Structures are given as C-alpha cells and as structure tokens.
C-alpha cells in the first residue's frame, strides 16, 4: 500500500509543477465589496448537494469556496491606491475607502445626565440662553477684544492699580486684598457647585440603601446608623453615642484582633465596673426579661398569621376567608402558652446548676 501512496504523491507533485494554481475565479454573480470593513459578500447560491452532511467532502468544498472569495477580495484590495509607509523601505500600505456598513454599538449609550441646579431654575423660569458675541468693542483700546481671556476688553484685572475705597467702608481696610478675597471666594463657590452637580449626576446607586424609606429592616437601619456615625470630618471619633447604642467603638480591623483594657488604666473605673457586675450577679434577677419575651412571641405569631393570610388569599379566594376565622382563636391561646412555657424553663434550669 505504501508504494501506491508514494506514486500518488509524485503524480500530484508533477501535476503541480505543470499547472501553477490559477488566480482566475469564475463566478455567476459579482461579489459585493465593502473594502472599508474588508468585507466581501457572495450572493451566489452555494451548491446545496455538496454542503449536505458533515464530512471531508463538505470541508473541502467549503474551503474551496472560501479560497475563491478571498482571492477576489485580495484582488480588489490590490487595486486600491497604495503607498510606502515610512520612506522607500517601509511597508506598502493601502488606503481603505470609507466603510459602507455601520457596525452596531459595542457598549450601551450613555444615560442622559440630570440637569444642574441652574438648568432646573432656568427651565422653571423659562430663561433661554442668549448667544453672546465672542468679541467686544473696547472703547479704550479702540478695537475688538475678547470677552474674556488673553487681552480681554476692559484691561488686565491683575494690573489694576487703583481700587477706590467705597463711601461707607473703613479707610484702613485693604481694598486690593478685598478684591482678591472676593475673587477667591467666587472661584471656590463655582468649583463647589460644579462638584455638587457632578455628584448629583453620579449618585443614586451608591447611597440608595441609606436613605430613609419608612419600611427598612432592623439591619438596614443599623447599617445606616453606623455609616452616619462615621460620616463626620473626624470619622466619628468625637461623636456622642445614641441612648441605646453599645459603648464599644467599631474596631479598625473589622473585629479580627482582640482589644483589651489598658493595664494601668483608670483603676477606680475598673473597680466600679466590677462592683456593678457583682451587683448584677447578686441581684438574683431572672435572665429572661418577661416583657421582651412575650413581645417577641407576639410579633412572631403576628408575622406568621399575616404570611398565612397572604398565602391563603392567593390560593383559595373565597373559601380561604371562611377558614381564617379559626386560626385567630388558635393563636390567641398560643400566646399565653408560649410565654408561660418559656417562663418555666429557665427557672428549672437555674436550679439545676452544677455544684463546684
């Protein structure tokens, strides 16, 4: 078998030598070209029989088709006006025409920015922008000068050598300094407003969970309180604590490192704390706060009842309404039972403590 193969290869090579591969391509319909995008569109219908099934025959047919089309595109590209890029030895570069097809956007379009405070006011009042001339007639210099900028009309403000003291002002006051201060303030105010407008345009996503909505969970409110505490110029260091806020300040490393009281701190305070602790231990108060336990139980049962009502209404409609009479009675009995059950347990538990 090897011998036959070798013969075939030799025969193919011989044929190659005799006939160089042709650059002529025959097509029924002309191709459409968009050389700006390096695009060639072939409107000829492909031979349907050849493309059926997936096999090496199909592959070779497709490859031949691609080869022909690329040949035509390359021929067109070579017809374009070309020039050497960097002098005589540089690469030959073709100048592509403008692309015909407009490709779609890669990224979404930018959202419109919200109007600035002035724009809102102008819209409200109906003030429209009056186009100003860029040149102004300067009487002194007898020529047209810019409105602002280099060689503006009205002279260079920095070179003003006279500043009159107004009628009611203090004669000792430095008018030049006053003018400079006023200018600085104007610039600062402008910058502040610009930044405010910018912030207004960029906000709305970052601080959304912190604005009061009226129905926020306990965790969200806690987060808002914590962020508010730290949002001061000294990052919350001198911020007084809220009435029921715990006294421990939030740690810088997020609670990873343990922090202890100082070794020789206020010993009187330490003594006070220990006495307080002893008083609490000795007072024989039950660990369970009855009112809080009862309220918690009531809240849980209310939430359960509300959830059950919602579900039933969605599922059963009319029939659900009749059945809702009964759960009310059950939960009324359950409230007392729960609190009573809880009260009994810790009393039993505290008496069962181990002897040392």
């Amino acid at each position: 078998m090897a011998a036959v193969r070798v013969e075939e290869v030799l025969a193919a090579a011989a044929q190659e030598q005799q006939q160089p591969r042709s650059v002529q391509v025959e097509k029924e319909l002309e191709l459409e070209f968009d050389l700006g995008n390096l695009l060639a569109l072939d409107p000829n219908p492909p031979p349907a029989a050849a493309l059926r099934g997936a096999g090496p025959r199909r592959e070779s047919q497709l490859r031949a088709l691609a080869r022909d089309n690329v040949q035509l595109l390359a021929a067109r590209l070579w017809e374009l006006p070309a020039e050497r890029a960097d002098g005589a030895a540089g690469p030959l570069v073709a100048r592509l025409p403008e692309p015909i097809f407009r490709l779609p956007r890669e990224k979404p379009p930018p959202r419109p920015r919200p109007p600035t405070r002035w724009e809102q006011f102008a819209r409200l009042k109906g003030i429209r922008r009056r186009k100003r001339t860029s040149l102004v007639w300067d009487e002194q210099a007898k020529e047209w000068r810019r409105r602002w900028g280099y060689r503006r009309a009205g002279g260079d403000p920095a070179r003003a050598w006279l500043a009159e003291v107004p009628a009611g002002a203090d004669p000792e006051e430095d008018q030049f300094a006053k003018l400079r201060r006023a200018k600085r303030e104007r610039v600062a105010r402008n910058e502040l407003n610009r930044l405010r407008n910018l912030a207004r345009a960029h906000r709305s996503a970052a601080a959304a969970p912190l604005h009061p909505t009226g129905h926020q969970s306990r965790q969200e409110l806690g987060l808002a309180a914590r962020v508010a505490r730290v949002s001061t110029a000294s990052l919350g260091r001198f911020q007084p604590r809220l009435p029921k806020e715990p006294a421990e300040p939030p740690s810088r490393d997020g609670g990873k490192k343990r922090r202890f009281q100082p070794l020789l701190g206020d010993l009187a305070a330490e003594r006070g704390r220990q006495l307080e602790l002893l008083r609490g231990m000795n007072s024989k108060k039950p660990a369970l706060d009855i009112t809080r336990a009862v309220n918690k139980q009531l809240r849980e049962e209310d939430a359960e009842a509300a959830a059950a009502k919602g579900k039933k209404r969605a599922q059963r409609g009319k029939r659900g309404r009749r059945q809702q009479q009964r759960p009310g009675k059950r939960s009324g009995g359950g409230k007392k039972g729960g609190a009573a059950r809880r009260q009994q347990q810790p009393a039993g538990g505290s008496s069962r403590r181990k002897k040392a």
Partner: protein
Amino acid sequence: MRPLTEAETRAVFEKLGRYIGENIQLLVDRPDGTYCFRLHRDRVYYVSEKLLKGAASIPRDSLVALGTCFGKFTKTQKFRLSVTALDFLAPYAKGFGVAAKSTQDCRKVDPMAIVVFHQADVGEYVRSEDTLT
C-alpha cells in the same frame, strides 16, 4: 499581663462567690488600698496597685508571677481556684469542713450520708447551738 475581660471576670467572681458569697465586694473594694485582678499567662493574680505599677515595667517573658495567684484559666477557659487564694478567702468563708468521703464516694453515696465534718471546739458549739439542727 492584662486586665480580665468581662467574661473572665464573671467566671472568677462566680467561682469565688461559691466560697465567700457576697463578700467579694470586700476583696474588690478594699479600704486599705486599691487591689485589682490581672491575668498573666492564664493565671489570675490579685495584686495591689503599687505592686502592679512596679511589675508593669518588667518584660512579659521575664515576669513569673506577681501578687497572689488566685487561680488559673484552663485551656477550655474554665477557672480553677488554687490554694494560694486561701489566705484571702479564709476570713470570709461560708464555712469550713473536712471531707468525710472521697470525691468518688460522695457521688455514689445515698442522700442522707454524711460527707463533711465540721470540726469545732466546744466554744463554737455553744455559740451556734441555736442554729445547729
């Protein structure tokens, strides 16, 4: 060396409370000086302020002990009272006695068995005649 945290203080006071009851206040708040508890290498020391200030300047690795050792925290953070605390607990003790049976026997014995002998002299017997059953 560091002061005790709240949890550690609570554990120590609970243990001490079993022996001296509410008199822990007298240990914490003494009229003759400021004494405090400090933790050093899992041992709890009862030390006066003057001594504490002196010990504060000793490097941690070189410091062996200070004041009186009341006990130590085990690996699982349980507080074990040690005999060196006896001098401080004795004046306020709730009572003294000698164990009549070993610890193991105490557990297996019936409810009415005697486990502690309170050995006292005649004077004490006479004094507390009314309270004795």
